[in-house]
């Protein structure tokens, strides 16, 4: 039987207390600049968003309407469509981004440094290129009349006549998700390459000596060790997918027939095109709640002992 020894209560002298207070003050002062920014540009706008969601806030009116914006939102068929589209985008793009990034990273991290850097650059290029430039290129690729995709598919015999990729409700959302994937995989690949490079090689060698297959090494050794990175990528990709906006604005304006309408674009449309700031804020609050719930689930499911 062991007995737990409780530490004796330490007596803190006034001088130590003063030193500790000085340390605390210094710490808060160092933190102050970022704290001011965080409060001013994150917390305050969030609070304002919550407050205005209870008002009929337009260019000419600012009157209290309680939960009316929320009631209207859940009766709004376009919001419903936007919600479904957004969730489809998230459910498709997040797993695909994670799996594709992990696959690419696991292929390139073992290469020579020069080759690894080359591939990292290639996959990261769409991220730094900027969404407008990327979108213009994709718009050209998907063009109904002289687009590269139709040209290639026709020459391969996959299609007999041009497909209006962005103008057809059957294809438009898939096109948006495809473009989103190209702009989303860059950062996860870089992170996975780094995480995989940091996996303890002695464990891998030991497992191999013990006769573990490549798959066993991956699932039993590497996967647990890259789990914190995976969790980060899941959360970031989920948030980015939920906030998909620029592609929609530049390519489809939510059409055709609202088939690419997303919550972010619908918020923008209501707030900036119709000047319905209150209604837009209410949708923003719901979007924030949905993202928080998704992120919480991901944290829960991907929770590990070390991360």
């Amino acid at each position, binding site marked *: 039987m062991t007995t737990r020894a409780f530490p004796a209560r330490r007596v803190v002298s006034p001088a130590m207390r003063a030193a500790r207070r000085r340390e605390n003050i210094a710490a808060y002062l160092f933190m102050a600049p970022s704290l001011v920014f965080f409060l001013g540009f994150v917390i305050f706008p969030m609070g304002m968003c919550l407050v205005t969601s209870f008002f009929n806030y337009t*260019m*000419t009116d600012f009157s209290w309407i309680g939960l009316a914006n929320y009631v209207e939102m859940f009766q709004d068929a376009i919001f419903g469509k936007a919600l479904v589209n957004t969730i489809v985008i998230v459910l498709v793009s997040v797993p695909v981004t994670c799996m594709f990034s992990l696959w690419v990273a696991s292929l390139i991290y073992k290469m020579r440094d020069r080759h690894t850097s080359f591939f990292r650059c290639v996959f990261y290029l769409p991220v730094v290129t900027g969404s407008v430039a990327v979108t213009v290129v994709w718009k050209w690729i*998907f063009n*109904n*009349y*002289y687009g590269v995709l139709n040209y290639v598919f026709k020459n391969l015999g996959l299609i007999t006549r041009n497909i*209006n*990729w*962005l*103008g*057809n*409700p059957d294809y*438009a959302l898939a096109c948006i998700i495809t473009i989103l994937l190209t702009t989303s995989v860059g950062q996860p690949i870089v992170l996975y390459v780094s995480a995989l490079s940091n996996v303890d090689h002695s464990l891998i060698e030991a497992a191999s000596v013990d006769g573990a297959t490549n798959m066993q090494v991956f699932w039993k050794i590497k996967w647990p060790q890259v789990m914190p990175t995976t969790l980060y990528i899941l959360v970031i990709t989920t948030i980015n997918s939920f906030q998909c906006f620029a592609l929609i604005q530049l390519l*489809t*304006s939510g*059409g*055709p*027939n*609202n088939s690419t309408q997303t919550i972010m674009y619908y918020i923008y*449309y209501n707030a*900036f*095109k*119709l*000047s319905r*700031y209150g209604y837009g804020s209410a949708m923003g609050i719901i979007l924030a709640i949905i993202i928080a719930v998704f992120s919480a689930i991901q944290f829960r499911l991907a929770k590990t002992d070390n991360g």
Partner: protein
Amino acid sequence: MKKLIALFLCLILALPAFALADDQVEITLWTYPIGSWGNAETVDGIIKDFNAVHPEIKVTVQYLDYQSGDDQVTTAIEAKTTPDIIMEGPERLVANWGAAGKMLDISDLWADTKDDIIAASAAVEAACKNAEGVYYEYPLCMTTHCMVINYNDFEKAGALQYIDEEKHTWTTEGFLNALDALNAAGFAPTAVVYCGGQGGDQGTRALVTNLYSGQFTAPDHSAYTMDSEANIKALQLLQQLVKDGKLDADAGIVAGDEIALFCNSTISIGFCWNASAAVSNKASLAEDVKVFPMAFPSDDGVPELQGGIWGFGLFDNGDEAKVAAAKTFVKWVCDDPAQAAKSVYASGFFPTRASLGDIYAGTDKAENGEYAIFMPYLGDYYQVTPNWAAQRTEWWNLLQRIFAGGDVAAEVAVYCQNANQK
């Protein structure tokens, strides 16, 4: 000594600021890309000339585009950082920001020019004020939006017989015959009814309303009237033409893309064109494209074209000195005897003052003058109808639903219900 030198240098640097504070009034102008009014070189030249006469006013310019310009203005209104002057048309200056009480009453600017403007077009004067007669826009230029055909394609297809080459008009029947002739001659796609967004929607609106002489709104601009028999018939006709493959509809493109298709000879007919577009797209025309502007086809051969009226509005920023300076600038740009014609010339459109006459004769833009042929067909300026911004989105969504096979009458009913929602 070093400190003294530093202080001296600081004072020298600060002097212009003091001088500016004492002598100059600084005003800001935001302008949408109305012809060369979106071009910094042109606008800088205008301001330079203005400063030669009025050195006491400094004008700072910000250029807006139609993709994000409205968002910037909306943000500025809420942040109370609006410019002193903004250049655009009545649908924004009068029906949107004016109706919301954000613009200044500039009736005083009209005092000595009202008759001249009415002599050019009574519709312009009517569009620049609200129902109570308060003027929120001081107009500079105007145009009629038209469509365009590739003359060479029409000639090869034997379709020139269906157009009135002298008046640049055609009937609905002539339009249908021309489509048949073009298709038979292998010029497919003939044209594209674009509906991927609101860009250039004046073209598709004019196409629909002219086919059977319908009206887009009630005469008093109190409601949208797409549910009239004539308009429904026109939409049904277009739907059938698309189904028959005589015409394309594309929910993936807007007017800018359609103009590109016309310029690179992919299509033979474009529904979004005007004098300014003729100039700005000149360099991008394919070799076999010969631009021939046309009015929209109508059952009686008498089109009713949608107008564009551009001018200046003043935001109410509560500074009397800035308001006075802004009015001086606007008045100089629009009415100065040496400048007015140059200001209109920069837009590529036509003067809203009868006294200016033909400003393009003998200039590099002489061909712009040819578009004056459409001015007599200038129709009702209905863009000041309430709920305009929401209506624009409803419009291209309506076209998308119809060309996806929706029942025209039912879809129009949905459109009217949403667009007329107060």
